[in-house]
């Protein structure tokens, strides 16, 4: 039992922090949602730097161009990148598609798709949800019909992050409408410039263009772009392959935000002339949120530790996601409250405090408990898969 990182792991952290300090200027750091073209350029620039360092695919096995880094190193990397608000990490290619291809792809697919991801040269996006298939993803309806060497795809995908920046999309389609719903789905790949694919932006409530609806109209996808077996796409997608599932990003983000808020509270006087950090209500909230952060981080570490020991976390990963997403909502919500009347000012507004980030992220994080499996679905999973309660 050891509740601290090893000297080697700390050495990696030190190297990373030094790189951040020396190589990533302050103006490149930020929320990193790549909403503007300028932010996107920054994103790509840092990504290429990460690729050069080998850090973009830190956890990939060496045979596919990764570092085969131990789990805890990847956790440290994620923690520090988030804490310092460094852009450049890329989940869709490096963490979602790549492991899928490593297991389910053909040798040819691996050789074709993995190297550009490792070099940070290609942006992937993920086409899973559809307008009528959210929590009940397996009910998806987008059709792919067999037509000679191709599938012909019709339908639409929604909530597709970065579709407007992406070069390629991996997506799920229904290839057998008569089979039980989980057994008629296939997993395909396509370039975003394939004729018939069009992208419509969706603006979120924070005013950002964060995702899209992607329409497929008679899109021809060569059969060689099928990953895994025909009609087994649900299982290809559902295999829990991610290199790092700990969810440590959330507590790292929360810790950074709390640190910023504590600094603000120390340096800002309340109506009584004392620093806000001496206000008992505010003090108490800081302590509570700090415990909540610590809780989410502890479970994240536990998930990583399980992965490091070759165990497959399931209820723990759902716990981590549930805790982490609630945590960031709570932290930004408190941040907005702490700023009082100023909490309502948007980024860029005159008089905005802490760059308006609290409000912007409070609005943004509304979706965190919804996307990638709602909190309700996560709790269902914990109860049934984790605790063995019977399904309803």
């Amino acid at each position: 039992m050891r509740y601290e990182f090893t000297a080697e792991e700390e050495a990696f952290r030190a190297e990373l922090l030094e790189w951040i300090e020396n190589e990533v200027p302050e103006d490149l750091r930020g929320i990193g949602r790549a909403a503007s073209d300028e932010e996107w350029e920054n994103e790509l620039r840092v990504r290429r730097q990460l690729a050069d360092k080998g850090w973009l695919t830190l956890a990939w096995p060496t045979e596919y161009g990764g570092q085969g880094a131990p789990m805890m190193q990847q956790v440290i990397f994620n923690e520090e990148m988030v804490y310092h608000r460094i852009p450049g990490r890329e989940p869709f290619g490096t963490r979602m598609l790549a492991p899928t291809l490593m297991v389910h792809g053909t040798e040819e697919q691996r050789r074709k798709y993995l190297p550009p991801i490792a070099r940070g040269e290609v942006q992937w996006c993920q086409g899973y949800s559809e307008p009528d298939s959210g929590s009940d993803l397996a009910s998806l309806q987008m059709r792919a019909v067999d037509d000679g060497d191709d599938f012909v795809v019709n339908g639409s995908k929604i909530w597709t992050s970065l579709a407007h920046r992406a070069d390629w999309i991996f997506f799920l389609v229904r290839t057998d409408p008569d089979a039980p719903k989980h057994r008629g789905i296939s997993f395909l790949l396509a370039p975003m410039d394939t004729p018939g694919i069009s992208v419509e932006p969706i603006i979120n409530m924070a005013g950002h263009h964060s995702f899209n609806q992607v329409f497929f109209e008679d899109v021809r996808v060569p059969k060689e772009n099928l990953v895994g077996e025909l009609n087994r796409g649900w299982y290809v997608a559902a295999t829990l392959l991610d290199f790092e599932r700990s969810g440590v990003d959330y507590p790292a983000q929360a810790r950074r935000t709390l640190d910023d808020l504590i600094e603000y509270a120390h340096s800002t006087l309340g109506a009584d002339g004392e620093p806000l950090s001496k206000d008992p209500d505010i003090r108490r909230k800081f302590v509570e949120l700090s415990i909540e952060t610590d809780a989410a981080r502890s479970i994240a570490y536990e998930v990583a530790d399980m992965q490091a020991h070759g165990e497959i976390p399931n209820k723990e990963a759902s716990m981590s996601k549930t805790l982490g997403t609630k945590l960031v909502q709570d932290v930004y919500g408190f941040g907005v409250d702490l700023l009082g009347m100023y909490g309502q000012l948007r980024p860029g507004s005159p008089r905005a405090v802490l760059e308006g980030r609290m409000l912007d992220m409070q609005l943004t994080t509304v979706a965190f408990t919804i996307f990638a499996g709602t909190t309700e679905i996560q709790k269902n999973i914990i109860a049934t898969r984790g605790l063995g309660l019977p399904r309803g």
Partner: protein
Amino acid sequence: MDLSLDDTQQLVRNSARDFLAESVDRLYVRDMEDDERGYTDEFWKSVAELGWTGMIVPEQHGGAGMSLIELSLVLEEMGAAAAPGPFFSTAVVGAHAISAHGNDDQKSKYLPRLVSGELITSLAILEGGASWEAGGIRMSARRSEDGWRLNGEKVFVADAGVADLFIVAARTGENGPPEESITLFLVEASTIENNKMERLESVADDRYYVVDFQDVVVPPDGVLGEVDGGWPLLKQTLDLAAVAKCAEMVGGSRRAVDMTLEYVKERVQFGRPIGTFQAVQHRAAEMATDLEIARQFTYRAAWALSEGKGDGTEVATAKAFLSEKFSEICASAHQLHGAIGYTQEHDLQIYSRRAASAKVAFGDARHHREVLAELMGL
């Protein structure tokens, strides 16, 4: 105890519902969010014609002479419709401040124009620290040969860009407790240079400004109430505004609940409406319960202020509760709506942004809980 609406009140509520259903649709709300002024002349004219601007203005000055209860019924509907515009600044804050604290000359001069919709008012109180306590008011007002000279900066001045008349709190003395040297002034917009105003970009439809008062001259008859006696008057107006804001929030909460109920009945996942899932049902039940409490607290406070009863508990309880619950109801609504409610295209986010604004206006939950602690002798 009788919690039912009388005939007049029902009429007020129904006519508000009818008018807003016709005049304020989602397109109007969205257009106005991007509009510099935030409302159309047509809308404002209709509101005045309906008599809403003068709802709590005494009849002898052209108003309807109604109480905060009736005004709250209208505000609830406006909150439900998310109707934008300077109604709150004018028909609530301005109408009350001048009706309750003005002298006869001031009432005759301003109220008929306010009632007819010609005069838009704005409250300029908050300064740097944005505190709702007396100590936060530091703007200086010095006597001069031509009356008073105001110097200082006000923040979160709502609707300053379109206001004709500002109600300004300034400090007319430096000694004694901060409550005892505050004076209210009526400052005509024409005396302030426009380039002294800067618009803040806020989360909701508020038109908040920073207004820099540099040597602004107020004639002697611009004093509202007594010199050095402004704070108790301002407190009254702030209390009324807090309750009125609660009424808006009740309307917004109601709409968020209704939208959610409608959605979960329609949205099908796993082969059945998601409203059949117990987690959804229980969350909806909690939203509806909070809404019911919110409504009771709000109208009790409106009744207490209208009747001159109560000791402040009703007001502070209502605002403390609503400040938290409107936001929480919206958060629950988002969770039950899933991704669709997170889009700018969907109406729900309009209400959650309104909630973020309303929760801090006229004192946040922390402020009002502190008031309650004092009232409880703690």
